[in-house]
């Protein structure tokens, strides 16, 4: 179990007279910061602890929910408002949202920090938002009861109105707030004791209400980080070195840049947080001039220790590490697979790889920094205000308590905006010029300096007994460790062999729900890749590669024993022991997807087939049970056309069905894009792909038919932003094998690889 998933505690509330406030707060995790010298206290506890506020009701009756989560298109702000509105009894037309600053009072009630990822937001905030909403309803009702002179128990709350059916009296929320009589306060125990609605009482949860942010995204008024304009602001354009990480600037000749009108100065970053290396920012009065000046700078670099490395060298190093018996740490250690292989009737072994992948959100990275009095203000859409504020502080040489992060709408996140590199040039340029500075990456900066999905190598070995039963599985995962890079111990997990903490965000998913008596999973850090390609969390993180290996291998085993791959999975999902519950849900989801796709019932032409996969992404403790049937057509050239993706996902409880469909469809298409179209490569220490001509996410013309089927069985709400990413690549790979007998074990699946495997 990952240690960052903790139970909420320390809930407090406050009501003020004029504008009525109810909220919950959690004490923060004490987040250590050992990896970065100089800013050890970067993530210290809040300087001013105040009872936090999740929403306020104004005297005009408008309810403004403050969302502590980054909204990058998952409409989480709207979802939070919906959960509050359900228990509060507010009308949807009265709901508004705003984005939180980095004040620790807006920390996630479970995670104790401001971080958005892991498909955690709904599941971890559902209870707190519901209780906050219910507390508001109780306080309003009590005040209304006193004002009307009737028992509170006889009041009905609906559509922002509190009514007393017997006397036909009623008051709007606005009336009650204006009266100033809502003064009930709640202790943490009071909040905990509130009886929340049961699902049969829901009138708002489960309804696809219009998303509150959408109108502003159809008329150009939604403000993203890149849209921030401050009086007297300058613009910064970056020059990043040819090597992804480790280069240093030897000299900067700005003589030509000085001839560019509006040029102010070139600032060579002195980044004590070690987030960036060898970056220079050219500052000018407009972005165009800053860009011209940046292009005119003549910079000499020392390429540093990674300047000769390539994807091939990282892969070679991964193979070397995997072959060592004592490398890495154990994430799962059940039974003794090595002994079992010795007595197995059949042993299968295969190596699976994934390439470097780039986030490439449509809004290039950017940040605006302004020093105002003692305070450093940062304007940027970011997924990890707690850490990013600390990085900004580190770049400025300030205590993090003097940094205010102004959250903006995110023009795509996908994990990229968990990182804080964009803060560094903005802060140092603002400091050097004494003016507010907005730094905007070019697409080339954005792609070549991405905190990418790491290149991975996985070796899976399976042992079958005489009856073809899977009795042993060992699984080695070699990669850079994206989450260890944060330097926050709470986000690491203890290894089962007590060799120290491991980065579970490289192996999550490998602790699957299949029953295999002897099962090892080893997490092996590829230090060379870790240093040369600082990796990040790309939508779905580890399950995006672990399930590629597992779900391919399970298919290979089924074919080796002459079983139907889907039915073989059903057999393995027997729900025994620790897999009880989860395995059955995953089995049911798989069967649903099979039924919906017509698996095994449709006769398909030659060269076409269906393939299945099923996953428990994201983490074992936070899974959404997801299955996919991919229907592909494979041409003699090896070219793969995906004709249809049928996805089923068990999300327990659905807050907003239409949003879930949108997220699951987007995630599935991400999965397909990563499976077929997206590949980055390292050469001479640098990422070779620089724009959308060479790094090519899926376009409209490549869209298959996608059907999304949501299973809502009343269990707790789970996340939907990521899980469907992970199920698609293995489903496609398995379908390709079923269609033409070609087993491809490297992502992305290319026509050449399919053709070569067809011949083999």
């Amino acid at each position, binding site marked *: 179990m990952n240690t960052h998933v903790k139970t909420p505690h320390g809930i407090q509330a406050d009501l003020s007279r004029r504008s009525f406030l109810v909220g919950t707060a959690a004490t923060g995790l004490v987040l250590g910061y050992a990896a970065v010298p100089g800013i050890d206290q970067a993530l210290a506890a809040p300087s001013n602890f105040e009872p936090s506020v999740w929403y306020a009701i104004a005297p005009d009756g408008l309810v403004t929910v403050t969302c502590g989560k980054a909204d990058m298109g998952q409409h989480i702000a709207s979802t939070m408002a919906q959960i509050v509105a359900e228990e509060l009894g507010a009308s949807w037309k009265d709901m508004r949202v705003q984005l939180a600053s980095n004040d620790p009072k807006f920390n996630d009630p479970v995670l104790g920090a401001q971080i958005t990822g892991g498909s955690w937001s709904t599941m971890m905030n559902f209870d707190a938002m519901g209780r906050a909403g219910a507390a508001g309803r109780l306080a309003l009702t009590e005040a209304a009861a006193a004002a009307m002179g009737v028992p509170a128990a006889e009041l009905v709350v609906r559509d922002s109105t509190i009514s007393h059916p017997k006397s036909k009296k009623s008051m709007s929320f606005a009336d009650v707030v204006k009266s100033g009589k809502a003064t009930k306060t709640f202790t943490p125990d009071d909040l905990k004791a509130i009886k929340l609605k049961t699902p049969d009482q829901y009138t708002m949860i489960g309804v696809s209400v219009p998303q509150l942010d959408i109108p502003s995204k159809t008329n*150009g008024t939604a403000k993203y980080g890149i849209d921030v304009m401050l009086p007297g602001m300058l613009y910064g354009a970056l020059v990043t070195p040819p090597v992804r990480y480790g280069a240093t600037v030897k000299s900067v000749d700005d003589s030509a840049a000085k001839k560019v009108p509006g040029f102010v100065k070139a600032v060579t970053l002195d980044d004590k947080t070690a987030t960036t290396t060898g970056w220079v920012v050219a500052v000018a009065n407009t972005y*165009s001039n800053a860009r011209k000046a940046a292009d005119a700078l003549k910079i000499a670099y020392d390429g540093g220790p990674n300047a000769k490395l390539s994807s091939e060298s990282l892969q070679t190093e991964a193979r070397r590490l995997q072959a060592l018996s004592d490398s890495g740490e154990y994430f799962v250690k059940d039974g003794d697979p090595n002994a079992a292989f010795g007595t197995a009737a059949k042993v299968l072994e295969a190596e699976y790889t994934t390439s470097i992948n780039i986030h490439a959100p*449509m809004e290039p990275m950017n940040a605006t920094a302004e020093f105002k009095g003692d305070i450093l203000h940062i304007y940027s859409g970011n997924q990890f205000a707690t850490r990013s504020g600390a990085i900004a502080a580190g770049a400025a040489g300030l205590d993090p308590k003097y940094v205010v992060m102004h959250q903006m709408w995110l023009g795509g996140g996908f994990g990229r905006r968990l990182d804080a590199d964009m803060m560094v040039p903005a802060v140092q340029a603002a400091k050097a010029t004494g003016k507010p500075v907005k730094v905007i990456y070019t697409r080339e900066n954005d792609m070549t300096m991405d905190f990418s999905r790491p290149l991975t190598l996985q070796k899976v070995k399976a042992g079958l007994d005489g009856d073809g039963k899977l009795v042993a599985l060992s699984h080695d995962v070699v990669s850079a460790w994206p989450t260890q890079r944060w330097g926050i111990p709470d986000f690491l997990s203890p290894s089962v062999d007590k060799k120290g903490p491991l980065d579970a965000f490289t192996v999550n998913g490998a602790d699957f729900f299949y029953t295999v008596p002897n099962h090892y999973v080893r997490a092996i850090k590829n230090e060379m890749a870790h240093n040369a390609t600082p990796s990040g969390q790309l939508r779905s993180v580890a399950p995006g590669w672990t399930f590629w290996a597992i779900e391919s291998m399970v298919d290979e085993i089924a074919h080796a024993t002459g079983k139907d791959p889907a039915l073989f999975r059903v057999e393995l999902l027997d729900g025994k022991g620790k897999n009880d519950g989860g395995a059955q849900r995953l089995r049911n989801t798989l069967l649903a997807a099979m039924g919906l796709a017509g698996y095994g019932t449709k006769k398909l032409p030659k060269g076409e087939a269906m393939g299945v996969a099923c996953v428990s992404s994201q983490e074992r403790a936070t899974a959404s049970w997801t299955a996919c049937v991919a229907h592909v057509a494979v041409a003699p050239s090896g070219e793969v056309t995906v004709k249809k993706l049928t996805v089923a996902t068990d999300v327990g409880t659905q807050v907003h069905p239409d949003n879930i469909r949108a997220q699951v469809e987007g995630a599935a298409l991400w999965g397909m894009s990563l499976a077929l179209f997206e590949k980055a490569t390292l050469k001479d220490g640098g990422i070779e792909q620089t724009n959308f001509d060479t790094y090519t996410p899926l376009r409209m013309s490549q869209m298959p038919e996608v059907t999304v089927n949501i299973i809502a069985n009343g269990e707790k709400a789970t996340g939907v932003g990521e899980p469907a990413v992970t199920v698609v690549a293995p489903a496609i790979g398995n379908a390709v094998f079923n269609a033409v007998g070609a087993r491809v074990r490297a992502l992305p699946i290319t026509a050449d690889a399919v053709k070569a495997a067809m011949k083999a």
Partner: protein
Amino acid sequence: MTNLNINGRNMSVEAANDTPLLWVIREQLQMTGTKFGCGAGLCGACTVHLNGEAVRSCQTSVSDAVGKKITTIEGLSAKGDHPLQKAWIAEQVPQCGYCQSGQIMQAASLLSKNSNPTKEEVVAHMDGNLCRCMTYSRIQKAIMRAAADMRTASATGSERRPT
């Protein structure tokens, strides 16, 4: 001084002739609905209209826009109620929303000439516009919905016309 006609208004800006129109619109005119995505004409986030034709404003120099009618997302309709904008809301298209100004402007240039496009025509016209959230199926549905609404409106004699 360069004189531009943008969203029906004449405005003068100070910019070198080779400045991309995108940055003039965003910074000098402070109309930030038009987005920077790739700077190379590969993603469509910066799409605006020049005399009703969809162009990539990152690849259009400000001097090339002189004497032409520039339309941005802010000027597509008076109240954000172009049939495409209404359809975008009805179909709940945007996720992060960053590419959607460009998507809507690109789609508007199709519907102004062809109010009954086939799915293939929509795909061919829209394929240069990337959506990293992959909202493509909703974009298609919204275009079809807007096209139908525009046909209905013109059949019933409404004066609404696409720009």
